């Protein structure tokens, strides 16, 4: 086992970015292959982490911790570590990053900058999932923001400047709320533990806040406020209704590979944050807000699905579908059952893979037809059968067809919410049934989208389009294959998650 493998994994893309800076901008092919090579290396490293991971341990593993900044009143550590919650997301990040970088061959302008920003972004995402110190977590969280801002703003579509600023300001505002909550957590935690200096260590804070003997030092109203602040901060990223309106603009304007990362991984940062920080440090408050979270989840499901039903732009449709699917994460997480929490993690991975694939397919069709407008498409199954076949497969995966990962996560999440204890969520069955109606709507809009693009009469101008190119098979087969693998053999994933989930739920229940 390589020492400090997590640091190596997290900073490898950054190192790649620095090397890229040294290559002259004219050598586009060298730059591309360097970027692909870096992301592949990260993928290999994360697979190594995956195989070295001890499935029987529920706590943090492969930890690294060094004192980093000492202001006297504040102590910040450089601490990394992973458990069953973060490991699948690390692997998801490297998979999505690799296919997104491969899919970036459509980017033709300012190639060097593009790959540099993308690699920096990858370091940010990996760092968030590996960080065990809230301050470090926040730094990485923000590190994802800046590159994405530039990627949308420079390589985006027509309304790119509006979309990128909306993205930056919206998520920046969320981060501000979140950071205030972090600071309050650190100082209150230090008070409660009688420490001389505030600590941002997540594991320590979790103990400080859940220890009943500290209940006098920290009032429960204060903790509730903290939890709400965290929820709002992460809700922007997830996003949760009504803080979602940056998303359709950003998803629709970002270049396709960036959208794949945005939808595939960045939205999971919010969900991960809620689980890791919100549930991890303030479990009791999480339980008391469970009904709220479940209702927000159902609203997300139904609201996103309804809006997806009336979209006329393929990318916006997928964007709203994405909002709808985020609701399932919330539902599963809110249930506080083993099945539900596991379903939430499954859904994070599954949605990452499937939505990235959907966006990739939309982009591949756009490259050929030059339009995302559904009414202008149609009958493409005739000219590009392989692409539309994968598009159909992606849509089916997204609507939760068994045999693919979406089904497993929906099943687990709904098993969770139906089985939620009445003490946690009083009217769980009602919420669950309303959420289940979303499944029907999901099928409706996805099949409608497929029908409008692939089926029906083909316009003559689409005759003789080039079907899938070899390079396009990499993202298509990679993402769909991963989704099917999880769908057919879910224990590959559940084995890794399970002990963490058991411990997680017992902490909340016990």
């Amino acid at each position: 086992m390589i020492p400090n493998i997590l640091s190596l994994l997290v900073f490898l893309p950054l190192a790649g970015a620095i090397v890229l800076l040294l290559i002259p901008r004219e050598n586009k092919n060298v730059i591309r292959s360097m970027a692909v090579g870096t992301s592949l290396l990260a993928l290999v490293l994360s697979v190594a982490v995956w195989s070295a991971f001890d499935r029987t341990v529920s706590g943090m593993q492969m930890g690294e911790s060094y004192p980093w900044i000492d202001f006297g009143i504040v102590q910040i550590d450089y601490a990394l570590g992973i458990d069953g919650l973060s490991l699948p997301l690390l692997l998801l990040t490297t998979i999505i990053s690799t296919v997104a970088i491969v899919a970036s061959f459509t980017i033709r302008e300012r190639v060097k900058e593009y790959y540099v920003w993308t690699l920096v972004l990858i370091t940010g995402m990996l760092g968030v999932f590996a960080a065990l110190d809230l301050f470090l977590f926040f730094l990485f969280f923000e590190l994802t923001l800046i590159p994405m801002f530039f990627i949308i703003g420079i390589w985006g579509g027509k309304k790119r400047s509006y979309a990128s600023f909306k993205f930056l300001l919206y998520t920046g505002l969320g981060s501000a709320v979140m950071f205030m909550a972090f600071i309050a957590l650190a100082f209150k935690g230090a008070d409660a533990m009688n420490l001389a200096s505030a600590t941002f260590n997540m594991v320590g804070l979790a103990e400080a806040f859940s220890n009943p003997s500290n209940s006098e030092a920290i009032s429960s109203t204060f903790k509730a406020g903290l939890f709400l602040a965290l929820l709002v901060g992460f809700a922007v990223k997830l996003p949760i209704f009504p803080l979602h309106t940056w998303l359709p603009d950003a998803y629709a304007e970002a270049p396709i590979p960036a959208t794949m990362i945005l939808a595939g991984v960045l939205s999971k940062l919010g969900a991960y944050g809620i689980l890791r920080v919100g549930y991890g440090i303030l479990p009791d408050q999480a339980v008391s807000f469970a009904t709220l979270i479940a209702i927000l989840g159902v609203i997300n499901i139904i609201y996103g699905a309804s809006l997806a039903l009336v979209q006329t732009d393929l990318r916006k449709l997928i964007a709203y579908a994405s909002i709808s699917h985020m609701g399932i994460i919330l539902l599963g997480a809110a249930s506080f059952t083993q099945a539900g929490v596991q379903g939430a993690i499954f859904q994070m991975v599954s949605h990452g893979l499937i939505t990235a694939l959907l966006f990739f397919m939309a982009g591949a069709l756009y490259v050929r037809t030059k339009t995302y407008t559904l009414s202008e498409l149609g009958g493409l199954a005739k000219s590009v059968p392989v692409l539309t076949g994968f598009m159909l497969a992606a849509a089916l995966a997204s609507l939760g067809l068994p045999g693919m990962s979406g089904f497993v996560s929906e099943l687990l999440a709904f098993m969770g919410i139906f089985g939620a204890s009445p003490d946690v969520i009083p009217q769980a069955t009602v919420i669950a049934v309303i959420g289940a109606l979303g499944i029907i709507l999901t099928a409706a809009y996805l099949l409608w989208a497929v029908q409008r693009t692939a089926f029906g009469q083909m316009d003559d101008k689409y005759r003789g389009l080039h079907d899938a190119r070899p390079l396009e098979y990499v993202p298509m087969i990679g993402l769909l294959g991963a989704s099917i693998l999880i769908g057919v053999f879910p224990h590959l994933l559940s084995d890794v998650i399970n002990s963490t989930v058991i411990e997680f739920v017992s902490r909340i229940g016990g």
Partner: protein
Amino acid sequence: MLQNAWIIPFFPLIAFIVLLLFGKVLKPYAPYVGMVALGFSFVASVVVLVERMGTETFGAAVEWITIGESTVTMGFEVTPLNAMMLFVVTSVSFLVHVFSKQYMREDDRIHVFYAYLGLFSFSMLGLVLAPNILQLFIFWELVGLCSFLLVGFWYFKPEAAAAAKKAFLVTRIGDVGLLIGLILLFNATGSFEYGAAFEAINNGQVSSGLVTAIALCIFLGAVGKSAQFPLHVWLPDAMEGPTPVSALIHAATMVAAGVYLVAVMYPVFQSSGTALTVVAYTGAVTAIFAASIALVNTDIKRILAYSTVSQLGLMMLALGTAGYVAGLFHLMTHAFFKGLLFLAAGSVIYALHHRQNINEMGGIWRNMKVTSVTFLIGALALAGVFPLAGFWSKEGVLAAVWSHGDPVLLSIMIITSFLTAFYMFRLFFKVFLGQFRGDPEVSHPRENTKWMTVPLVTLAALAVVAGVVNSPLSGYALEGFLVEGLTLGDQAHGGIGLAALSLFLSGAGILLAWVKYGRSQAVGTEHSKGFIKTLLVNKYYMDELYEAVVVTPVLALSRVLQRFDRFAVDGTVNVVARSLRSVGKAAGKQHNGQMQTYGLVTIVGSIAILVVAFMVRGYFG
């Protein structure tokens, strides 16, 4: 072989994968790939069925997922019920594979067609072999997918694409019910496995209200898949698919999966009287409802489709009135004779170059002897004429309803039997007798090749003899086989009286059809234009009703939400952004670039700060 029964679904799966990857190369041989795979499956199924008759139920499972402290497994199980189903599915599927070679000959995507057929056979066999309801659900969805793909096989036709979507969505409504049902079952009993779950229910671990809820949710799934009222609307539209598909999926196997589901979950339904009543009434209403629409329809495939809906209703009715064996027996015989009818109809349609309107047919008997005779056998079997398969199975259903004793159900059953015979022979007379009324171009259709006629003859033979297995002639052998290991009440058997009643109904229906359509050789148009006729022709306006009650409101609501999203939610965001920006603009105006103004402001500001600081510190007293 029982230990290796899991291999049966994998033959077609291999065919699917091979055709998916190498379809373009293998195109001329695609039918053979499919046939060989199904041939192996069929042989294996026969071996399994024979072997199962002599031994115990065998099952095996592997871990699928670990959820916290509980583990969910996947595997297979060979019970009498699924051994029978294996035989039905593989035999019909094999014959359809053979039939399609000719039927789909001219299609450029024949390899895709056979790939889909392979995937369907895999899924259907997997559904049948499933030892737990979760696995059943997984394959249940996959057969729905295959149905979607095959109905929409001619995707460039807008009707086919729309029908495919409709089929998927309507059954999806039922599927959500089933999903909820199985989740409730798991949460209540701690297991998806049939045996463990039934044991928990029989031990009274689950409250009776919850059992009813579970049973009804599961039944909702069956309603969707088996096209029961009110979720039947997708099946007639699904006739847009190629006819062999209609025969295999939408007549013989997949649509029967709903009946199979109720049969598999029978212990749950038995624990809830309400659920059984709901099953019986849904089946009865569906049976008479669909039969009445079939009376006036003019599309040869849609008439058969409504007939299928009606017959599936009868199966549900049988299950709901404690006729467990009768329902399954009817499922089996129906698979054979309805598969036969569809394939024979396909033979006619193929010979007429894809014309389906029965008003434009007639006199086919003279030109297509084999097709006509086999169709007649199928029609007689469906009408329940002695001694064909349909007679025995329908009599079983009638006996179950009779002994159940509900007069409403009984009268519906009697009327439906009569209507069935009538619409089938209306169809037969209009298509096969009289003069040809259609396009002169195809006025002399020729009998099709052996690829088509051999499956017809084989199915006709099955439609003749299959009834014997559960008749007094064999001492109700099927019943003895199926009830093993189950605690059922006595299965009702009809006596001579019921048989006579059944025969009388069939005869009356055929006679009336003869009087109206056969004797007079009536030309296509049917005169009466009464209210009832209009209602029937428009299928009771069910599609319009759904359009008005479900589709339009959902879309309208979505549009309202869309506005809300754009103007209220995003509007708020933009208003906040804009007001902040205008504050900035206003402040920006003050910065005129005059350094002397800046200096003045700086000085005044510094002095003000000093003054305030002094006041706060108290230097001014």
